[in-house]
């Protein structure tokens, strides 16, 4: 599956458009990680546990989007966009969407 956030796939020709495909994922870390983040908040800097958490959920959201596209018979997704929203303390929703296409 080829992905791009521009309106084409570099080096390929778009043959068929299948419409919008999307994937989302909501994840939370266990309380221990939240507690560590609280301590980290005293000294500042990067919250590695959260970077990791959001990366995992982003990969999951992308995987779901890709699965959705495969079901429709697409082999690429163009114009992929991401959005993140904090819906609950310690949890975030990652949403990915794009247009499924068939390229040759």
């Amino acid at each position: 599956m080829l992905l791009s956030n521009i309106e084409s796939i570099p080096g390929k020709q778009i043959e068929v458009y299948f419409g919008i495909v999307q994937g989302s994922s909501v994840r939370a870390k266990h309380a221990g990680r939240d507690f560590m983040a609280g301590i980290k908040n005293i000294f500042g800097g990067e919250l590695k546990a959260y970077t990791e958490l959001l990366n995992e959920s982003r990969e999951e959201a992308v995987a779901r989007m890709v699965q959705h596209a495969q079901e429709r018979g697409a082999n690429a997704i163009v114009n992929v966009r991401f959005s993140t929203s904090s819906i609950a303390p310690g949890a975030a929703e990652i949403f990915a969407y794009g247009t499924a296409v068939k390229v040759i």
Partner: protein
Amino acid sequence: MFEIIFIGAFLGISYFIGNRIESNHIKDIVIREKKSIHLPYRNTGLKDSFVDHEGFLVYGSVVVTHDAFKNFVMGLINIIGGRVTVYESLLERARREALLRLKEKALAQGAKELVNFRMQSAEIGYNQQNSGSIEIFCYATALK
């Protein structure tokens, strides 16, 4: 009296360690930026069709938080108003880090250029009272 000393010491330690983390991070960023400076990136190219290239999607992200000292200064600035330089430096550092992660990932996969570069931020809270953490996320299409 004891409380004032305790809070003072707490803020002092937070300032000292937070500052050290910050300056070490900036040093690290400067070194890594030099290594990836040759990779051009732009936020145009949405409508272009790069026929003689290969491309793929890349992204990089970082979640950062303020320290207790920055939080305290923020409280003071909130009363009088004005620029919050302590937070500006934190976010600038986070943006540079996220961009670097994106560039490093792209370079590892043999990218020559990044087009349609996008950057966004989202607030990530870990409990009701404290929501000072922010995620900086950037993505782009890398061309080979």
